[in-house]
């Protein structure tokens, strides 16, 4: 029996890596000076590192933390710190269990003070522990320790406690104070009282320890003491306000990097005269996933990430040259559909499958024509013989893709109420010219723009799965979030192993395994993206509606936009509730802000959002962004505002019906009131597409 191979992509989160693994799996972006240039660990200016789930914030912040410096520099960590010019102290806000600092019969103000005190004790311990580890055994510590402790004791009100005389003992005192506070907070749920004596003024130790150490220890003289505060989203607004105040009142030689999800910053307010921190003044922002998504080197980075995993797991050489060679041949590890003229090889199955029966898209066309004929909506068609003739004219049996192109153009003509027999003849002529090499004109243009949609329709109509396959597709799907890429590959690897393949070792991973893996990853992303509380449900429902609308358009007979997974809208005209949900969807990386779009009619610049590419497979949508659907404020509200969702079905149906045969959003003859102008009602809409 074959043993199931270990999946190198099983670990998809930095939190699941130990420090050594964080170091081993580190991959830099191949542009300029890499991530260090972006994160600027030696810069005194505080920085917010924002990014979606899986954007690599934690990996990046841990990479700059002391335990990783220690791994990088081994025994000479102090020398390394001098070279780096910073020492990184890493804190996960999740470890503070910040939700306990509320209620229990105490006011918000009391909890704000208690939390600030708790943070002071916590960060100070982390700083002391870190520095003690770094200078452990150094003679300079021995020489200066008593003086350092004395200076620091001036910053604490110890009351009855015996004053410590070493930094380790001082750290113990801080630990005892913190644990006493833990006990008091815990008991306050029972007793309703919170007896706390705050022994340190806000910021005194957080800034005081680095100041005293830098002035006393020569090896840390030019060093920046960098607090790396991760998972900022775990703090409440009041708690964030305290941290913001630390940023505002920052004292050298300390600085901060704050890691947060995009939705995670609840306030920029501070306790310094209630003023807000301003970007560029009190802090700068690194938007990690935007930078990765828009970085031309992201595909290269993604490939490096993959080959690093494969190399570490297979224990094969991971020197730069070996990795480069692996990255260059990585594409070959995934089977892709055979390329060929007019997609003949990848659609050959249609020829075979429907050898002696009508192809499903022709069956649909025939039914539409019959229905349209009965409804008086088939210009130029005189009866069943003409219908049969049209079907024959549009047929191109060796090239199913071109048949789909013929039908697409035919539906376009039909919507524009042209004579259908004439239209069919014209299209057939264009098709023949195209086959002979004609590369201008609307036939060529239609295929240029709509080929992906026509193939998607073809797969769907012939009961095939959509083909999200190939390395480039997976990189594109990941949308700048490395974790997404790893999760896609994790599922693909698992399916390949399940299907008896030898991923990355033998033949390329089959299309079947890739399809199954991508679909599973997409479903995971949808489930996983759900945020806490009622808003989470509302956002997910909205995304569901948007996906359904895009799918309706893509699989209509005459889609108005190609590869439609993006919309534009004048968001200022949407309701407050609609705007809020839209904003949340963006902050949760379900929608990606892709810049502005000029409205066709008003010249106004509208906001433009793409549905996360990770979600595209869920609705069989395109992952490459091309066409943009302009939504009215009414339509936007029906998607995003819970008060207006009852209008969604009607508005969506109206929008998609204009792209559907046989009536293209207009009434059939049976629906028209007697006396109405028949022709006008049947073709009320002008086709501006």
């Amino acid at each position, binding site marked *: 029996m074959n043993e199931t191979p270990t999946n190198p992509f099983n670990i998809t989160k930095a939190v699941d890596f130990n420090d050594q693994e964080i170091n081993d799996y580190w991959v830099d972006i191949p542009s300029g000076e890499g991530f260090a240039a972006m994160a600027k660990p030696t810069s005194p200016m505080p920085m917010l590192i924002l990014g979606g789930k899986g954007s690599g914030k934690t990996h990046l912040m841990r990479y700059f933390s002391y335990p990783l410096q220690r791994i990088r520099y081994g025994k000479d960590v102090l020398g390394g710190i001098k070279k780096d010019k910073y020492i990184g102290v890493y804190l996960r806000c999740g470890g503070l*269990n910040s*939700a306990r600092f509320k209620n229990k019969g105490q006011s918000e103000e009391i909890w704000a003070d208690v939390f600030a005190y708790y943070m002071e004790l916590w960060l100070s*311990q982390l700083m002391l522990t870190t520095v003690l580890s770094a200078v452990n055994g150094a003679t300079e510590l021995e020489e200066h320790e008593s003086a350092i402790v004395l200076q620091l004791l001036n910053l604490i009100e110890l009351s009855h406690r015996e004053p410590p005389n070493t930094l380790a003992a001082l750290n113990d005192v801080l630990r005892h104070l*913190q644990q006493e506070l833990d006990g008091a907070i815990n008991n306050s*749920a029972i007793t309703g009282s919170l007896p706390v004596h705050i022994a340190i003024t806000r910021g005194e130790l957080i800034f005081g320890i680095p100041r005293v150490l830098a002035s006393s220890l020569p090896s840390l003289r030019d060093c920046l003491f960098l607090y790396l505060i991760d998972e900022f989203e775990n703090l409440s607004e009041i708690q964030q306000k305290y941290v913001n105040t630390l940023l505002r009142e920052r004292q050298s030689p300390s600085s901060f990097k704050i890691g947060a999800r995009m939705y995670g910053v609840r306030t920029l307010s501070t306790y310094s005269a209630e003023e807000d921190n301003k970007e560029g003044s009190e802090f700068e922002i690194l938007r990690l996933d935007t930078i990765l998504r828009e970085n031309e080197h992201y595909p290269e980075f993604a490939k490096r990430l993959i080959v690093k995993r494969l190399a570490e797991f297979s224990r094969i050489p991971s020197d730069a040259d070996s990795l480069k060679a692996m990255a260059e041949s990585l594409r070959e590890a995934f089977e892709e559909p055979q390329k060929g003229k007019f997609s003949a090889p990848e659609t050959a199955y249609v020829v075979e499958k429907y050898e002696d029966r009508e192809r499903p898209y022709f069956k649909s066309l025939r039914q539409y024509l019959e229905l349209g004929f009965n409804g008086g909506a088939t210009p130029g068609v005189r009866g069943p013989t003409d219908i049969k003739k049209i079907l024959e004219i549009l047929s191109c049996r060796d090239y199913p893709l071109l048949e789909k192109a013929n039908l697409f153009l035919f539906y376009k003509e039909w919507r524009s109420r042209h004579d259908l027999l004439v239209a069919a003849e014209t299209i057939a002529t264009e098709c023949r010219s195209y086959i002979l090499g004609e590369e201008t004109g609307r036939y060529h243009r239609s295929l240029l723009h709509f080929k992906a949609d026509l193939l998607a329709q073809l797969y769907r109509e012939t009961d095939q799965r959509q083909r999200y396959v190939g390395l480039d597709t997976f990189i594109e799907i990941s949308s700048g979030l490395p974790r997404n890429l790893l999760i896609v590959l994790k599922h693909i690897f698992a399916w390949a192993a399940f299907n008896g393949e030898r991923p990355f070792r033998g033949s390329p991973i089959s299309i079947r395994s890739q399809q199954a893996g991508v679909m599973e990853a997409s479903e995971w992303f949808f489930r*996983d993206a759900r945020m806490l*509380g009622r808003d989470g449900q509302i956002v997910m429902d909205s995304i569901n509606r948007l996906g359904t609308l895009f799918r309706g358009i893509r699989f209509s007979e005459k889609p108005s936009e190609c590869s439609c997974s993006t919309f534009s809208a004048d968001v200022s005209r949407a309701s407050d509730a609609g705007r809020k949900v839209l904003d949340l969807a963006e902050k949760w990386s379900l929608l990606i802000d892709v810049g502005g779009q000029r409205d066709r009619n008003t010249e106004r610049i509208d906001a433009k959002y793409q549905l996360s590419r990770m979600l595209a497979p869920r609705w069989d949508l395109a992952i490459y962004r091309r066409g943009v659907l302009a939504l009215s404020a009414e339509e936007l509200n029906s998607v995003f505002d819970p008060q207006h969702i009852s209008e969604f079905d009607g508005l969506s149906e109206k929008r998609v019906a204009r792209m559907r045969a046989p009536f293209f959003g207009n009434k059939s003859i049976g629906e028209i009131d007697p006396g109405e102008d028949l022709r006008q009602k049947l073709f009320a809409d002008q086709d501006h597409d």
Partner: protein
Amino acid sequence: MIDYSVLYKNELPARDDWPADVRWDIFVSAYTAAERVRTVYEKATASEKHWLVFPEYGFSANTFPKGAFASPLRNEAEYVKAFWEASIGDVSGRSICIDITGFIRPYLIFLLRWLAEKKVARFDALYSEPDIYSKREQTRFSDELVVEVRQIAGFEGIHNTDTSNDYLIIGAGYDHQLIAQVAENKEFSRKVQIFGLPSLRADMYQENVLRAYQAEEAVGRNTTDESGSFFAPANDPFVTASVLREVVGRINARKPITNLYLSPLATKPQVLGFAVYFLTEQRNCPTSLIFPMCEAYNPETTTGVSRILKYTVELPGL
């Protein structure tokens, strides 16, 4: 060290009358629409019987029994304290029985801490097993709308600034969303799951695992190897406490746990086991009980009563 296995557990008749000596001074039960909860309430003999109506079940005033304690308070400590002040008062020398079947978990957990504070050294807990969960593995106990994941009042522990070997032990129940949310909240912790085996009924273990699998990505690496999953009987709080002791001991032997989070999402007897284990062995340690707080719970998720279990719980002096 307490030997949980000697604690008393027996069975009461599900259909026949209970023995005459099975009686208490105070009997407390949580009101739901489930047949098993009402059956036990009717069978129990006590000087005082109290229904608790939790706001998360969404009962309107005319749908729960007259005299029941109902409060809109959604904080477990505030709710239990308000109930105690309004309905119980001094309990010295009085015997207490709690039917844990219909309790919402955080309230039950805090109640144990409260009883310990009130110097209750021993009480009986009843749990009635259902014939079947109404929608089998698709049963939803909560509305899965998690409002926040937080520590349970009185079980917040003290904490370690070193978080490098934090652990989260999940009592894995049917609600995979809850498992995912709690795992997500303690993303940085290594995860261990305890499944209910033997389960309450023969098919429930498989159903349990099927649901829990859906939270696999959030739970992460440690469920993929052998050391990530453990088992404790779904209906035995004392063995659950023993298993917790064993799991924690085993992890500590490899490398000391820096902070320990326990999240009991499975059956009520297992919840009881988690709370007893905490109070007995983990108070004043870097250990806390965390729970994904939901906006609402389904008041009826089972059919029938298959058997009724009685546990005599001993609480440590605080």
